[in-house]
Every structure is written in structure tokens, then in C-alpha cells.
């Protein structure tokens, strides 16, 4: 459903420029903060499995650490992926489990299907170069695009923070495949180290 623009609508060129600037600022910030961290909440729904929890994501030079905590008990799984030596999930009662593919390992352990590699770039607000991106009519910021059958929607962005230098970054993302598979992410905080 087309949302009613909440302000003066940008021209096509203005939108392209706004989008390009957002991409540049985001890429520069992430390059300057290689071990960036994001804390938020994730909800996953699929035909046979679903759940929600806190997601604490820390970037590594060659991978990432994703900690998913359950409500109340905050029982936590820590998934560490470093390209070279694959993935390991710790915090399970049966002890750590390893695998070469992080997504497959997470699926085997939890039944959750999360496109972790794509999610990593989606959460950074970096839109793929080779796909058409629908831009917000008022701000020019990315609003929606499709990547490997995931329809990704940026529903909310943060405001750039001059004091900390944190640029405009995603705050709410929804990614769906068809009607039944959905990943929703609300980002509560960004930090550079």
C-alpha cells in the first residue's frame, strides 16, 4: 500500500542523491568502525518454526558474533562466524556445535531460518548495487528492494547524530519470502566499538 508522503516530495534526481549520500555515509562509518555493534530485537516466523528474542550483533574483521537471547530467562546462544573456520554456536546445553555454514547451523539448532549474511548488509543499510531500490518519496532513503527472493523493507531509519558521528542507519527492517517466511528486526542501539 503506498504510504501517503508526509512532506514535500523529492524529484527523482534528489532521491538518487539522498540515497547515494546515505550509502556513502553508512559505508564510511562502518569502515571507520570495523567492530561495530548493534543491539535490537528480532522476530522470525516460518511455516514450522518461529520465535523472537534479543539480537546483539558485533562485527569482526572477517565475520561476526550474533548473540540471540530468549525472553525472560535471557538464555543465550552465541553464534560466531569467521569465514575461515566456519561457524560455532555456544551456550547450548549439549555443548558447542560447529559447522561450515552459519545459517545451516543456526537452522539445525533452532529451526530458525535467518539469512545471516544478507541480514548483515541489510542492517547496515547498504543496498545491493544490482537491484532496483524503491526510495522514500520524501527522504529518498531506501524503502524496499528484492534480493535472492527476500523482499526487504526499511520501515524506519535513525536520525544522524552529529555528536557521536553515527550517520543515518536502519531502525526497523522487515524481510519476507512469500506470505509465510518473515524476519523482523527492530534496532535499539548502534555503537562503534
Amino acid at each position: 500500500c503506498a504510504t501517503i508522503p508526509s512532506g514535500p516530495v523529492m524529484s527523482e534526481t534528489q532521491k538518487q542523491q539522498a540515497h547515494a549520500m546515505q550509502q556513502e555515509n553508512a559505508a564510511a562509518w562502518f569502515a571507520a568502525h570495523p567492530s561495530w555493534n548493534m543491539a535490537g530485537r528480532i522476530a522470525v516466523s516460518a511455516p514450522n518454526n518461529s520465535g523472537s528474542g534479543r539480537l546483539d550483533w558485533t562485527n569482526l574483521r572477517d565475520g561476526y558474533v550474533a548473540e540471540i537471547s530468549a525472553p525472560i530467562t535471557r538464555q543465550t546462544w552465541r553464534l560466531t562466524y569467521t569465514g575461515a573456520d566456519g561457524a560455532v554456536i555456544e551456550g547450548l546445553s549439549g555443548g558447542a556445535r560447529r559447522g561450515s555454514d552459519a545459517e545451516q547451523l543456526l537452522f539445525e539448532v533452532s529451526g530458525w531460518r535467518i539469512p545471516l549474511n544478507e541480514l548483515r548488509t541489510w542492517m547496515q543499510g547498504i543496498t545491493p548495487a544490482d537491484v532496483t531500490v524503491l526510495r522514500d518519496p520524501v527522504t529518498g532513503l531506501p524503502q524496499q528492494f528484492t534480493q535472492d527472493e527476500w523482499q526487504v523493507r526499511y520501515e524506519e531509519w535513525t536520525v544522524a547524530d552529529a555528536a557521536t558521528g553515527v550517520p543515518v542507519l536502519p531502525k526497523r527492517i522487515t524481510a519476507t519470502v512469500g506470505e509465510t517466511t518473515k524476519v523482523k528486526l527492530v534496532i535499539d542501539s548502534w555503537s562503534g566499538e
Partner: protein
Amino acid sequence: GARDELNRFTGGLRSASAAFNQQVFTSKGKLKESTAGGLAMQQPKLFRWVYTKPYPQTVVADGTKIWVYEPDLQQVTVRQQGAEEANSPLAVLINPSRLDAQYIVKEAGTSGGLQWLSLTPRKGVDGGFTSAKLGFNKGLLQRLDFTDGLGQRTTISFSNWKRNLSIPASNFRFTPPKGVDVIGG
């Protein structure tokens, strides 16, 4: 000792409500999360756990199912009420009579004005916790600390306890609001 305090707390406990503050520390001791809210429980397996800060989240156990409602994510996740809660240190609130069956309970001295009990899961009890401690004072549970398999420490401090109050049955039922995704269960 703390054991007597536990017995005073759980003895004849049919229902209760309290406010709580919860803090989670990483294995390196860094404060990772600080939340607050209120809880209500009623024997035998009904409980309601509502986070109000920093963001809303409601968890209701209605005796057969657990409902987790996240307004910001517009999602309700439902699953069968099962082992996690019963085995977790929350069991002291939910079904105290089973505490000894699941944990080795030992006196752990007095500190911070509280009398402490340590809980070590018995063989085969998997609540995902390596250790837990209960802190009592004046026959009330004031603190619940537990450490998980990653060495992450959670401390929950309780206040404003009310015992054996009458709680409307609707508190332990959950009807998903319109327009949110209801998943599972």
C-alpha cells in the same frame, strides 16, 4: 537460615505479584541490558511477566501455552508451556514445591543484607543454567541471580511483593491484538 526464609516465602503461596528490575552482564562483566517491569503468578503454573522498560514485552503462561507478545515487532509467538520455565530458576516462583526435585539447594551465607541459597541443577535438569542464587529477607525473595552456559550473569531484584492476592483470571489469559502476526503454537 535462608532455607527457613525460602519456606516462609513458598509456604502456602497460592498467588503473588511484584515489581522487578533485571540486569544482564556479559561474561566479562559489562552491563549488556537493563529492563524493568512487573510479574504476577498463581499456582499451579500460571504466570504473567511484563517488561515495561526500555521497551514493552508481555509473556503470559496460561497453564498450557506461553504467549510472548512484542508490540514493537507486532508479533505474538506461542508455544507449549514446557521445560524451559519449569527448569529455569524461575521455577522458585512458578512451582516452588519442585525446587528440590530439580536443584541441589544449599545455604550460601549472608551478604548484602540478604540470606542466600545456591541452586545447582541436578543431573538431567536442563534449564540452560550452570548456577543460580536466591537472596531472601523478611521471608521474601529479594534477588534471583543466575549464570548461563556462556557465563552471562542475570540478576533480578524484586520489590513490592504482594502475597496471596486475588488476581483476575484474565491476567493469565492472552488474546492477541488485531493486526499482529500470531506465530506457532
